[in-house]
């Protein structure tokens, strides 16, 4: 039997992924052994096997489903605000050229600013509540929504606008029948980015102010010194965020075929 057929299998996409996954599992196995052997302090790094057992435990005991729903609600509210405020603001910037020229760089700077660090301020204004969390998510995700909406509208091909002009469209018709449909793919990308930023900051703030859903769970478990629980909850949250991100990507690819 020749070894030739083996190499393409190993280096193929699936083969590589499997090997990658296998190495990660092997690494976890090494950690398990190292802890059992006493090389690594088990009060700093709990046994991976304990962590795995902890996950179903906390799902049952800590009402993870309810907390997940809380976080999701916060993200949904933030997304609603992002769409309701961000898209019109982007359209406004496009409509009034002078405002766009004045403000576009400011919005760009806002995208780079560490907005979530204002959370103590939001705490003072909105109290220790879900509102604070939603508002921070909204504030963190706003800039990309505005910028991508603007980019989509401004990037509409001139010839499509000329077609509208040749049919004597009013300004309003030009916006709703040509500009907005042409900009929609970009707007969705902006919403996806805004959603992701919002979600990251929402879970982060939940952890920091010890209120809300999944972020708070991690904080609680950490304060109780439930090590396997804490690690398990972190893994759970990471898994959730991966699923969330992946869904957003698939949705984007679905809405923009061929890109």
């Amino acid at each position, binding site marked *: 039997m020749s070894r030739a057929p083996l190499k393409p299998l190993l280096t193929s996409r699936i083969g590589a992924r499997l090997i990658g996954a296998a190495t990660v599992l092997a690494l976890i196995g090494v950690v398990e052994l190292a802890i059992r052997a006493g090389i690594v302090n088990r009060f700093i790094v709990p046994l991976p096997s304990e962590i795995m057992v902890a996950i179903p435990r906390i799902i049952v005991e800590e009402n993870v489903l309810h907390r997940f729903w809380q976080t999701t609600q916060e993200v949904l509210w933030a997304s609603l605000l992002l769409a309701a405020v961000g898209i019109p603001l982007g359209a406004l910037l496009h409509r009034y050229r002078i405002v766009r020229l004045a403000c576009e760089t400011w919005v760009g700077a806002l995208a780079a600013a560490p907005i979530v660090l204002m959370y103590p301020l939001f705490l003072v204004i909105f109290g220790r509540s879900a509102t604070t969390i939603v508002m921070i998510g909204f504030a963190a995700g706003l800039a990309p929504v505005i910028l991508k909406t603007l980019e989509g509208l401004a990037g509409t091909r001139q*010839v499509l606008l*000329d*077609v509208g*002009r*040749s*049919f*004597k469209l009013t300004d309003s018709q030009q916006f709703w*029948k*040509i500009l907005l449909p042409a900009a929609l793919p970009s707007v969705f990308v902006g919403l996806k980015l805004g959603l992701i930023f919002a979600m990251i900051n929402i879970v982060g703030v939940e952890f920091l102010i010890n209120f809300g859903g999944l972020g708070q769970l991690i904080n609680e478990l950490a304060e109780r010194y439930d090590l396997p629980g804490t690690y398990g909850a972190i893994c759970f949250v990471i898994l959730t965020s991966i699923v969330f991100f992946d869904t957003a990507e698939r949705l984007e690819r679905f809405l923009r075929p061929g890109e």
Partner: protein
Amino acid sequence: MIGESARPPAAATDVALSRDARLLDVERVSKRFVTNEGVITAVDDVSFSIAPGEFVSIIGPSGCGKSTLFNIVGGLVGDYEGRVTVAGDTVRGTHPAIGMVFQEESTFPWRTVVENVAFPLEVAGTSKEARVERAEHFVAMVGLSGFERRYPAELSGGMRQRVALARTLASEPRILLMDEPFAALDEQTRLLLGDRVLQIQQTLKQTTLLITHNLTEAVQLSDRVLVMTYRPGRLKRTVDIRLPHPRDSEVVSSDAFGHYVAEIWHDLREEASRGIIDDESRVLEGRARR
């Protein structure tokens, strides 16, 4: 339309049609641009008229200002000297009687073929049933029956241009204005599409002004060909195409066709050479590309 200053009388370069016979009137139109290199005259004192039902082509080398002329006649550019009138009505901004077909891809990617073609009817407020029926009529006219529910992304470039044409025809313009709509297509497709366009034009008796750089196309489709000079763009000469109707693409092999092409090329060649020489001197002098 800046007011006219004292200028020499217009060059008599086009057939003088009687006032009633003119549907489109272009009177002493000039357009200048200010660039980093100074003032460039794209179009210089161009005058011509088109009678109802005529198919007129404007041909010239690239850089002769024919696209500028397209934009002026279509009303997309406002700041020029001279006047453009349609059936006596001065053109100020885009005019409902003028339908435009652009060179670039202009179908709406988010609408199906029939939705694209129905667009002008939708804008005019026609009821959904009526406009779908009218749109399907024009879709059939350009030979795309069966493709009504497809999206432009699923069609070839030539098919998309046919959709754009059908869409403009659906608005039933008095004058059809086209800017090299088949420039991106290969020669054989162009000839066949040209056939179809001519058939449609003859059926509808559609007054048409075609901007092109393609000799064969100009002679194949037109009743008259206007030759433009290289920048500054002036009307160099008019050639009446007395080929019989109905014509099809077979006509390209006839002797008469060859003579017309030769005649036009004789004038065009000089202008095209000037364009090439200008390009070369640009590079040598380090000027910006055209």
